[in-house]
């Protein structure tokens, strides 16, 4: 499991610049310190920051200057003092993240310019969570126009890049809970949450996040924006991103390290640690999305079809102007596709017989790279790894979908599945939850078997029979 920690911190600079002036600011400073210690103990070797204080317009920007250096001054709290910084940025990861975002249909670019204005929130987070620059960091912007689908896909792209790198990563989101600042200057001793309503909602969020219910909070994002967020440049979308990076579930151990007013807003330092047995299933159920298919081609010419975007994602090549839907295979025809992992033996991905498609066993390996989302079950020396069965199962289903798509069929056409698990006791619950997400409405029959091993270091494989398209 490569994502070892999720951290939520406020970006307003008071805990960095003047914690001693207010007890709450001091508590937040201590909260930062506790989160820093958690990151240290987690063994994280990279920090990935999503800051609501870095807006972007042209897609998503990722910092890639290896050693940005400046003396930063906040545009509003300039009177609190200057913040000299010199950070250590993981430029290679920035590039990989950009490519992963593009592969999922997003507009993304890296920025590596001397003097690029790193936002106050990212500066505060890095100064307090990584004061000695021991851990290389990456920072991604928050696009002002991005909706839930786009932000979710950006999170999944981050996860793709993290998994491909195999580096333990702590994910950091810079945001406040309620965000209404006072509109006049206050004495530090006068600071309080702006309104009782803001306080009430902040307490709800603390209860949810303290209980590890990240995906539930993500699915409440629009309501939270309506209730306690002033319409600013960037709206409340960081929980969409964070949940997508961390797996879109509620299985975390949440810990609220500190909560206090920050010039009227709700400042909180919260950590989320992946767990197998905490809050459990999602309370809400918004539609999931894997590839961004929204309107981005607005500079002229025809929009790419959804099909061409999918093709671009699968092939990691630029979208073709239009790609016809795959034709139905003839009776008896074999189906092979570059969009699924290469077979490990002399067999096709699928074969049509009559009105049915028979798929060979499908695992979670990624086409082209053979990377295993969620990690391999054992390392090269044969030692067991702490892999993520949910991520592996998601990847299996995505590969099934790709093969069916290549044959002109879809997940909705699946009739029967035989699932193989190498560790039934450990993995059935996680596998079963992901399965339910995709197949509850399909109504396919299913058999789940425990087996001793699979040919590659994976934990799950599906054998699928589906309806063939009309020839």
């Amino acid at each position: 499991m490569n994502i070892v920690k999720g951290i939520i911190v406020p970006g307003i600079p008071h805990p960095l610049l003047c914690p001693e002036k207010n007890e709450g600011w001091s508590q937040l400073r201590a909260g930062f310190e506790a989160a820093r210690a958690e990151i240290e103990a987690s063994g994280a070797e990279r920090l990935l920051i999503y800051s609501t204080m870095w807006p972007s317009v042209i897609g998503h920007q990722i910092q890639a200057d290896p050693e940005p250096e400046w003396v930063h001054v906040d545009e509003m709290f300039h009177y609190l003092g200057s913040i000299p910084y010199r950070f250590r940025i993981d430029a290679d990861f920035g590039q990989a993240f950009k490519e992963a975002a593009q592969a999922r249909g997003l507009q993304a670019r890296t920025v590596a310019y001397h003097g690029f204005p790193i936002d106050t929130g990212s500066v505060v987070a890095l100064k307090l969570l990584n004061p000695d620059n021991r851990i290389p960091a990456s920072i991604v912007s928050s696009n002002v126009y991005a909706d839930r689908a786009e932000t979710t896909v950006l999170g999944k792209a981050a996860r793709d890049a993290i998994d491909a790198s195999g580096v333990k990563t702590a994910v950091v989101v810079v945001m406040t809970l309620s965000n209404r600042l006072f509109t006049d200057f206050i004495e530090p001793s006068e600071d309080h949450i702006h309104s009782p309503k803001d306080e009430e909602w902040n307490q709800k969020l603390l209860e949810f996040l303290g209980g590890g219910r990240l995906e539930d909070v993500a699915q409440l994002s629009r309501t939270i924006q309506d209730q306690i967020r002033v319409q600013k440049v960037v709206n409340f979308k960081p929980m969409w991103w964070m949940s997508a990076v961390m797996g879109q579930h509620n299985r975390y151990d949440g810990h609220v390290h500190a909560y206090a007013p920050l010039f009227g807003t709700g400042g909180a330092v919260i950590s989320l640690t992946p767990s197998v047995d905490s809050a459990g299933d999602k309370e809400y159920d918004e539609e999931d999305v894997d590839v961004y298919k929204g309107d981005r081609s607005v500079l002229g010419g025809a929009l790419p079809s959804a099909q061409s975007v999918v093709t671009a994602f699968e092939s990691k090549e630029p979208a073709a102007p239009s790609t016809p839907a795959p034709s139905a295979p003839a009776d008896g025809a074999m189906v092979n596709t570059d969009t699924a992992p290469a077979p490990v033996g002399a067999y096709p991905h699928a074969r049509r017989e009559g009105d049915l498609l028979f798929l060979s066993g499908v695992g979670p390996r990624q086409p082209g790279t053979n990377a295993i989302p969620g990690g391999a079950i054992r390392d090269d020396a044969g030692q067991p790894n702490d892999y993520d069965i949910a991520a592996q199962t998601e990847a299996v289903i995505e590969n099934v979908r790709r093969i069916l798509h290549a044959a002109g069929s879809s997940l909705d056409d699946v009739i029967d599945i035989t699932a193989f698990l190498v560790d039934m006791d450990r993995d059935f619950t996680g596998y079963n939850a992901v399965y339910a997400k995709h197949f509850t409405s399909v109504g396919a029959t299913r058999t789940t078997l425990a087996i001793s091993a699979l040919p590659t270091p994976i934990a799950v494989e599906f054998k699928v029979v589906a309806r063939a398209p009309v020839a």
Partner: protein
Amino acid sequence: MAGSIVAGVLAPHPPHLVYADNPPQNEPSAECGWETLRWGYERLRKDLEKLDFDTLIVLSPHWQTYVGTHFLGVPQFKSLSVDPVFPNLFRYHYELDVDVELANAICAAGQEAGLVTRMMENPDFRVDYGTIVSCHLTRPEWDKPIVGISSCRSTSYYSVEVMQEQARALAAATRSAIEASGRRVVLLASNSLSHRHFTTESAVPEDMSKEHIMHHGQYLWDMRAIELLRHGKTKQFIDEMPEFTSQAISETDAGALSWMLYSLGLPTYDAELYGYGTVIGTGNAVMGWFPEST
């Protein structure tokens, strides 16, 4: 002799215009681009040359303050401005003087009028790119001191109407401070009209075959706004601004244009339209008001 406002300018700040101008201060360079706006600025500059003025006062949407209105309060700034949205186009080495005395006077007058105001006196502060772009395009010689005013985001916290009331109070403070100072000043409202961007960028940013308004509705609103302003109907424009701001996602939400028009006393004389053009989908007009010519 009492000071006066000798011109008000709607001076939008797309960094693309500086990029396409290729001044020595900017690191990236272009072959061409956005000529209708750049030539418009050129004609504006010729008209401003005919005026005798001391100071430029600019209100920029890209110095965003949620707590009050802030004023640059350091005599000189010298640094590098990198646009956080278009860093590929704008990395500008600036060196500018501030009319701190006048800034202090406006700040104090605003406070007396009940506004929340504050001087920005941190020498490490980086001047926002909106201020720099509007000032460069209006006066690339940088031989006049400026007063830099932040955009108090009262539209975000309350409404366009509240923003306008605050802009009116700030305008009264600006006007009284100018009169007391004896300065002859040019006001710059640094904002676009419609303000919905493309979220993609051409491989060649100055490829004008890709440049157009984001959608026709924005264009209709821009034309309506320009027609009102061209024909001295500034009060009607102010009245319609809440709907314009909402429908055209206009950068008028920042208060710059309201502040300038109120400072000019809501002119009933015609504005000079120097140019209109789109920049990455947003609508931009360069316009001038000249009280002494009416």
